[in-house]
């Protein structure tokens, strides 16, 4: 009986140690912090030489409306999108408070854009299909530009 108790306690303590270490690792990943505010990052993308149509820096009202997000869901955001309605170019970086909700909102935004451009302008639809939603710690971002790799490299350079 005493030996069984000892064994069970040992297994329990080992498991506890294992999960604690795993928890530490996750916490380290979630603490990824950009070295500058997100609007600095998007400004650099806009000035990087990538070819953009006429773009607009999106106000918070418009951002919340199109992404169906509220004040409590994020702590920072920066979005630029094409103003004309005929282009799908967009840059979006959000520092999430509710990461699951923000990721879902961004997925819905991307899906909605694909849906409207699919039978409308094939070239713009292809550009949307060439993009993915990515995360870095609490940051959620996606870019739809004429050079997504360059744009994403700029974003990641702020996390080194």
């Amino acid at each position, binding site marked *: 009986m005493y030996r069984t108790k000892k064994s069970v306690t040992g297994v329990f303590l080992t498991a506890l140690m294992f999960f604690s270490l795993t928890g530490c690792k996750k916490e380290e990943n979630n603490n990824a912090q950009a070295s500058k505010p997100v609007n600095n990052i998007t400004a650099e993308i806009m000035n990087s030489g990538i070819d953009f149509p006429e773009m607009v820096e999106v106000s918070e009202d*418009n951002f919340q409306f199109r992404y169906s997000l509220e004040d409590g869901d994020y702590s920072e955001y920066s979005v630029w999108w094409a103003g004309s309605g005929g282009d799908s170019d967009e840059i979006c970086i959000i520092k999430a408070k509710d990461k699951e909700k923000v990721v879902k909102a961004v997925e819905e935004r991307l899906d909605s854009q694909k849906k*409207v451009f699919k039978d409308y302008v094939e070239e713009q639809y292809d550009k949307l299909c060439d993009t993915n939603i990515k995360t870095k710690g609490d940051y959620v971002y996606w870019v739809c530009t004429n050079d997504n790799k360059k744009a994403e490299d700029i974003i990641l350079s702020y996390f080194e």
Partner: protein
Amino acid sequence: MSGRRRRTYTYVKSNRGPLIRFRFKVVFIVFIIVTAVCFLIYMTGANFENDDMETNMFLFSEASETSDSSDEPLDKVKEIINPIPSSEPLTETYFGNCAFVGDSITVGLSDYQLVPIKNVYAEIGMNIEKINTETIHTAFGETTVLDGLKQAKPENIYIMLGSNGIAWLPVSDMISYYCEFISSIQQNLPDSNIYILSIPPVTAARESAEEEPILNSDIDKYNSELLKMADDKKIYYVDVNTALKGNDGKFPEDNAAEDGMHFKKTTYKIMLDYILSHIAK
């Protein structure tokens, strides 16, 4: 001798009274105070409770310049002159009372942040064939355009439809769908002023594009049918096409996006200024 101890009990009478004495007077006073507070809260809420105002506050962030005139009963216009002639220009606060319905060109009004986004009932790829059935993202969730307008009850509704469709839909079909849409708005929103905006021109390059060319002559034919429809339906027609085209009858390249059809931001300002100076009296 039994050896049993006799237990004795001592009762100590407390000199304190009960912790809470029942006083009828106190209860009565508390009741009066609570009733008075509830009454005040109710009256305060009732003074600010107004269904129309709640709906309109959702859309109208600023007071409208027409609000003074709308304090008087809205007179029915006996005679409609189309296209609307020029009038004394209003300021942009007028747009707080307006809804804008349309396709990707109308989406640009909100994407360029020129009018409140909640006032725009438009979607990229929208056309006159699906305006009655397609749901879009509105301030009231995913609704049809008509359902969104019914909830918003805007004073003025501006509609621009046809650029998307002119290349493949017969004009007669487009006008038929348009009539159906206008009729449902008139039935559901009899007090709203309806303005049809003529569809804008395209550039010379778009006319000769290999993929989906659009001819300005087809646009002009469609717009003339829209004008007739506006007269038949007794609604307003604003000729923004003429305001936007150049001397050669085409959309100037400098004002157009790369596809020769969509607008740059400066072009929207030209259109909005034209609207502000062509308001029905």
